[in-house]
């Protein structure tokens, strides 16, 4: 008896987004990174095309976040004090595909650095590495509205991925993205309806959704991971079924979110029986990341060198 063919056939293709610009494209990057283009769900190559494997963005923060455990900071090493040197190490030693520069410094609740300082950091990182750049604001909307335009201009023509456009700031983000030729991250607070709404708003304001990567506020394993996982999955299925507002590549900001939860920062003295943080921390990060990759993430940010290695191996294994 013949086996029944259970292959799914989808009617739509996920948008393809290229980040970075080489000299011939008006930038200074040595290479570009392309994501998206899928015609089926993650890793189901027998069903459709998956032209681009998920990519890893090494996380660099302009000021060391409070609360990061020694397990993480020591693994990153002394370079943690210099975003440019940190980025260079991630590229040279860990071969990350992109750098995700988180601009925490300008946060008014923290260092409250100036927009000019942030722009300077962006330039330094661009000079230190030749991979494409993701630039992510601190999350304070008022300050980001000041900082991101300046950083966007400092990186003009480099075709960076700027984060993030939300329901309230999409006009500003759309305008700077267009003016300086960058791609945008559209972000929603773990809410698929708002995710779609942000995309519709961006599209209606004249920003091409072919230049957008979607992001859900990423949850670490154990902290709403399953909610975000199902949103990634539902977004991808809707996109493949033909919803043009959902047929976008997706990014999971894992490196930034995981190193806030107790399982990734508290050692055995606080969590007896949970095993050494030295192993558990990076594994918590890697497990969160591999989950999102299987849900449909195209770009993953990662912080710990060991997590980067584990996730890269997993992607390679699943992509064979």
């Amino acid at each position, binding site marked *: 008896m013949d086996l029944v063919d259970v292959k799914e*056939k989808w009617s739509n293709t996920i948008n393809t987004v290229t980040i970075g610009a080489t000299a011939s494209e008006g930038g200074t990057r040595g290479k570009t990174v392309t994501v998206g283009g899928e015609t089926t769900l993650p890793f189901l190559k027998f069903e459709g095309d998956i032209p681009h494997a998920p990519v890893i963005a090494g996380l660099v923060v302009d000021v060391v976040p409070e609360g990061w455990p020694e397990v993480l900071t020591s693994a990153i090493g002394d370079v943690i004090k210099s975003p440019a040197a940190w980025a260079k190490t991630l590229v040279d030693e860990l071969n990350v595909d992109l750098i995700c520069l988180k601009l925490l410094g300008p946060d008014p609740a923290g260092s409250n650095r100036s927009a000019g300082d942030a722009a300077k950091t962006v330039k330094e990182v661009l000079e230190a590495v030749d991979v494409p750049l993701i630039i992510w604001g601190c999350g304070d909307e008022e300050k980001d509205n000041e900082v991101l335009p300046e950083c966007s201009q400092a990186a003009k023509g480099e075709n960076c991925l700027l984060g993030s456009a939300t329901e309230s700031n999409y006009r500003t983000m759309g305008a700077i993205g267009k003016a300086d030729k960058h791609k945008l991250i559209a972000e929603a607070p773990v809410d698929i*309806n*708002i995710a779609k*709404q942000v995309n519709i708003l961006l599209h209606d304001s004249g920003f091409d959704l072919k230049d957008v990567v979607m992001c859900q506020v990423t949850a670490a394993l154990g902290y709403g991971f399953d909610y975000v996982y199902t949103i990634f999955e539902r977004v991808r299925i*809707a996109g493949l079924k033909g*919803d043009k507002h959902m047929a976008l590549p997706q990014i999971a900001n894992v490196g930034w979110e995981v190193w806030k939860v107790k399982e990734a920062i508290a050692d055995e003295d606080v969590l007896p029986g949970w095993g050494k943080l030295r192993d558990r921390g990076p594994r918590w990060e890697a497990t969160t990341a591999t989950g999102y990759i299987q849900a449909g993430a195209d770009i993953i940010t990662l912080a710990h060198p060991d997590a980067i290695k584990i996730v890269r191996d997993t992607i390679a294994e699943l992509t064979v």
Partner: protein
Amino acid sequence: MIFVGERINTGFKDIKQAVMDKDPKPLQRWARDQTAAGATYLDVNLGAVSTKPEDMCWMIETVQAAVDTPISIDSNKPAILAEAIKVCNKPPLINSSTASQEKMDVFLPIVVECGGSVIGLSMDDAGAPKSADMRVEKAGMFLATAMEHGITPDRVFLDPIVMPLKFMQDQAKEILEAARQFLLFSDPAPHIICGLSNVSNGTTHKKLINRIFLTMLINNGADAAICDVMDTDLVHAALTAELVMNREIYADSYI
């Protein structure tokens, strides 16, 4: 929701005159307006104005010079279809074939040749169906034959044959029931389409009847309609019905 814009049809005076004068402007205006209104396909119907394939080709090329929306070639003449598919820039929707073996033998190879989709009417030479069962039988035969030709269900649009409410009031329920059963034919299911304006033929409250009937048909599985896409109330009602059926993801600006 797949909307097939019905307006480029020589049944309308302005289009008839334009085709006779070979004046591209009215066709292109309707092409742009219907595309802007959200048409997935633009139906192009030469009607009784001419039997020459080149006139149909002129209409299609004229529309394609204005927009890149795919064409629904509205003709039951194989000679016209065979020529028309050659000028389509994108895979067209062939509108339409009945389920009679003779018709399918001629039409389905044309669909295969152009890689497009096809509307299958749930009727054959015996004429319009009276019951849901008859519609299901004919539509099932059409889908099975299309699949034998290698046309997958996602390229088949089954039409339960909409009848005028005013003159055949008992038919509406049969049509709705037939559509519901079409859904069960295959997984994934074929598309279910209707020529909507038939339902309100001769009535006073045309738009209201169209709108209500389409939302009820969507509830029973329809995902496509040949209709007046310029009727924004109709389009908004259909999009809302799709949300109610959980086929689209809600967003505040879904309209």
